[in-house]
């Protein structure tokens, strides 16, 4: 067996061995040439790289695509997790955004309230909201200012931006503000710029509906709603909000005041509207006894 093998190897073995030896020799010579004349062989290397690597491109593209596919797959696996993380972060961001907005509004409000002058002739009294109605069916807040501060029933109450409600019930140190959203609230209003007169009726919803519009066709969503001086309830021109249309086609007011956060409210002193009682006396002198008392006018308006 062994002899046979050796006999077989006689044909092919030496040739192979010779070939192998030649190959090794050639490679060694290549190494030596490289060591001796490095720049030439390095140029050769550059040429080989230049020829081979671009031709690899054809193969490399699908391979790269496959690798990218797997990488994408890995990232797809993490997509749900990433999504959750992003959601959490978004939530935090929202909270921060909300905080920023609130701070901005509060800042604006406080800046506005800083104009408070402690003068009996001042135009508004600022109070802090102590409590709300405590009932889901009554929309009112309690202020920490009352008769002690000269408040009277019927005076308008605003936050820094828009009308909030009116005083209804004054205690010695507190007063209740019936909000515009309360179902008992009826505020005469003017829709700008069309000048339509209307009534803002609270109905326990965040956006009170507008009723008794004279001509609905010229009222568009987005119009400004301001208070009217009708009935001597409110000073005219206080911003209430903007007209909006609900899905049922009913006009409503999107209130300008920030009802989410009623914190500081200012009560506008209203010294009553001058009322013409007799045809002859067009202009009533300031100190005349014919001047109606504000409390009386408010009581009248409430009826």
């Amino acid at each position, binding site marked *: 067996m062994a002899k046979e093998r050796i006999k*077989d190897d006689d044909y092919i073995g030496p040739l192979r061995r010779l070939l192998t030896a030649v190959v090794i020799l050639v*490679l060694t010579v290549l190494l030596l040439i490289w060591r001796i004349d490095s720049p030439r062989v390095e140029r050769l290397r550059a040429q*080989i790289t230049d020829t081979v690597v671009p031709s690899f491109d054809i193969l490399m593209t699908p391979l790269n695509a496959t690798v990218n596919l797997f990488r994408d797959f890995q990232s797809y696996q993490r997509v749900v997790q990433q999504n959750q993380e992003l959601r959490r972060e978004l939530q935090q961001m929202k909270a921060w955004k909300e905080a920023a907005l609130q701070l901005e509004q509060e800042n604006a409000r406080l800046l506005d309230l800083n104009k408070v002058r402690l003068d009996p002739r001042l135009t508004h009294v600022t109070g802090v909201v102590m409590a709300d109605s405590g009932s889901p069916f009554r929309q009112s807040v309690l202020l920490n200012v009352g008769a002690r501060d000269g408040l009277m029933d019927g005076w308008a109450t605003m936050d820094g931006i828009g009308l909030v409600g009116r005083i209804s019930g004054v205690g010695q140190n507190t007063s209740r503000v019936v909000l515009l959203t309360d179902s008992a609230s009826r505020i005469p209003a003017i829709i700008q710029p069309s000048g339509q007169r209307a009534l803002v009726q609270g109905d326990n919803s965040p956006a009170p509906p507008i009723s008794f519009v004279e001509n609905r066709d010229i009222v568009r969503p987005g119009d400004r709603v301001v208070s009217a001086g009708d009935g001597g309830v409110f000073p005219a021109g206080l911003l209430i909000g903007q007209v909006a249309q609900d899905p049922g086609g009913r006009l409503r007011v999107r209130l300008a005041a920030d009802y989410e956060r009623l914190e500081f409210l200012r009560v506008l002193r209203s010294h009553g509207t001058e009322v013409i009682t007799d045809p002859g006396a067009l202009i009533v002198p300031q100190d005349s006894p014919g001047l109606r008392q504000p409390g009386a006018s408010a009581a009248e308006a409430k009826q």
Partner: protein
Amino acid sequence: MIVQSGLRLWGMRAGYLGFGLVVILVHLMPGTFMPARLPAPDFIMALTFAWATRRPEYVPSIAIACVVVLADFLFQRPPGLWAALVVSGAAFLKTRGRFLRDLPFWVEWLNVAIIMLALHLGYRLVSSLLMIPQAPLSLTIVQVSGTIMIYPLVVVLSYAATGLRKSTPGELDPTGHRQ
């Protein structure tokens, strides 16, 4: 007796070259540009040795030289040195394969491991003789141990992929010679 067709022989030779190219390709692929902490094992050497032990006719010295010298050129190694070493290691294994086929796998593995270590040693020796800058010893050790570790895997995979196994006594090679 199983007579292998010439087609299979040339197919396997082409397969060897193709595998070598693919390995080079994968190494060249623009994946990460960070320096690798663990150098990849030398798949070309593992495959060459596995095939040289089993079917010497599939890995002629010229094919080995072509693949490894191309790798030398493309991987910025001193050209020819590693190729010459791998070719001589494969040639040695080709002569030993006949005896190794009757022995358990771990003997073959040990043989291959010793040859790989010897080749790396020779590489470092020649490099230092020719004053060629060398890779850090620790990385070389990691690489050679990795290559030794993947050797059984390469054997199993080449058996699974191409049905490559040790020749049995009395089997004829495609040229009609007894193995």
